[in-house]
């Protein structure tokens, strides 16, 4: 399925990119479940160049979600090094990881995770408010809203939107802060095939038009085909 730059260095995920926006080396994550250590990641190496659209493909339990959470600064790694946009994520404090999420990483979740009490517009603006930036949409962002096809649905609350529309709002929310990297976790997992194709097409379009770096996690080869490159995970390793 890989149809982009192939792995060339000491590990299948690592590449010869000169200035990667994400560089991961020897990443491990061990969870303690009761008395048992669960090795979710067993030494992951990964490089992503700025402007790439990469699919991280793997079965359930392969460690892709754990990698997603660590790259997004949602949870700390056990060991290894991670550089995102030149900043080392390893050893970051909670506060620093919050700052990372505020400025550098955008998320798109499988279940959209929009705040149900706010309108679509306010869901998007909340990110700007949290980031301490002006909440008014720029003309450039209005064009993106048009591209996403939600400019007429902004005043509606999530419950009044279809799944596809909610996911488009979630994409808008993720990219309004112009993050260095957009992380999408099974973005079409809750959508029918028509809406899935539309959302994936939008992500691809977004990547091509704006150069937004995207790392999409999926177990679906069809979804992965929209990305320029696919990386496969199994048993906590990139294969």
């Amino acid at each position, binding site marked *: 399925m890989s149809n982009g730059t192939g792995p060339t260095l000491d590990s299948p995920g690592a590449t010869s990119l000169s200035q990667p926006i994400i560089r991961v080396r020897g990443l491990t994550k061990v969870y303690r479940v009761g008395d048992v250590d669960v090795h979710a990641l067993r030494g992951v190496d990964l490089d992503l160049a700025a402007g790439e659209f990469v699919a991280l493909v793997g079965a359930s339990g392969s460690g892709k979600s754990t990698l997603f959470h660590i790259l997004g600064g949602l949870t700390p790694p056990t060991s290894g090094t991670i550089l995102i946009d030149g900043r080392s994520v390893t050893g970051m404090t909670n506060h620093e990881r919050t700052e990372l999420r505020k400025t550098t990483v955008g998320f798109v979740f499988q279940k959209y995770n929009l705040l149900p009490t*706010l309108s679509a517009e*306010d869901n998007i603006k909340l990110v700007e408010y949290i980031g301490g930036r002006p909440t008014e949409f720029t003309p450039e962002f209005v064009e993106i809203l048009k591209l996403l096809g939600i400019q007429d649905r902004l005043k509606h609350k999530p419950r009044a939107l279809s799944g596809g529309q909610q996911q488009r709002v979630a994409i808008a929310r993720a990219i309004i802060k112009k993050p260095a990297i957009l992380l999408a976790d099974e973005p079409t997992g809750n959508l029918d095939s028509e809406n899935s194709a539309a959302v994936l097409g939008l992500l691809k379009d977004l990547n091509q038009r704006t150069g937004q770096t995207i790392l999409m996690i999926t177990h679906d080869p069809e979804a992965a085909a929209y990305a320029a490159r696919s990386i496969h995970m199994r048993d906590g390793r990139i294969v």
Partner: protein
Amino acid sequence: MLNKLILANLSHRPVRTILSVLAIAVEVTMILTLVGVSHGTLDSTAERARGVGADIIIRPPGSSVMSSLSSAPISQKYIAWLMQQPHISLATGTVVQGLSGFDSITGVDFPVFERMSGKFDFASGGAPVDDNDMIVDDYYARQHKLQVGSHINLINHDWKISGIFSGGKLARIMVKLPVLQQVMDRPGYLTVLYAKLDDPRQADTVAKDLKTQLKGYPIYTMDELTSLYSISNVGMLKDFIGVVIGVAVIVGFIVVFMAMYTAVLERTREIGTIKAVGGSAGLVLSILLRETLLLAVLGTLVGILLTYGTQLLMHALPSNLTQETVYTWWPIAGVIAIVGALLGAIVPGYKAVQQDVTEALSYE
């Protein structure tokens, strides 16, 4: 934006919000009503005392200013004796029989009393003529639905209302002095003595002089007496208000604790989302505390409005309680409500702050 989110959160669960506001409102109403009744009762007592027109008051030995009077241990002969004392221009006495609650019935020597305090201002009827005649003030008449000509049985005696007068004079229920003395089986004895001076500026001197001659009798000037009608001089009342405030804080704490704890559980995923998009723990806590603060402020405002409702109820019900609006206690009750509510938000807030983002995002 944050205020919009807070308002949206509160309006998203209207029943829970309304119940929380009402519970805090009841807490505030409890405090304001108790304080209002305390002030109202003491102030109306002081007003009636001033309405007597006397300068000196002599109460039975062993009684305190706040104790209810229901005995007649003072000989009526003291009236003649008082009249012989320097500066005393007029003296009279009353006999008091306690009824249920705060009520009492007072026997009055009407001709002398009116010379001391001025004529009664009758809204209808007039002073007692027959032995079974009784006059009541407009407040008591309204509460007990009495009119001139109405009959009422008090202390196992049938009375007929002969007049309804404007309140603020000595007592709410009055009958002829000899009649009540007879009913109480204390002819020739009084409960309280009142003296009017030819020069009110001599009140302190005369009171001091009387104290030396009437050992054991509590003797007050009118200024002294009315200044003693305050909550701080009624130890039991002060303690009771303290207990009610304590209960109110606990009620506010429990209500807000439950409301916020449920909200945090219910919004686990949303809290995770806010943190995922860069919201700090402080921001999440701030949202919860602001919501709590808003509930407490709304509860305080509704509580103040409800206090006016209890005032109306107090008017409508046959009790002898008067409730005042004590404005100085509005902010105090508000602060008490806010403190109780914020205490209730601490544990849910801590839970929200401590929530792991990844777990919160996968919460179903």
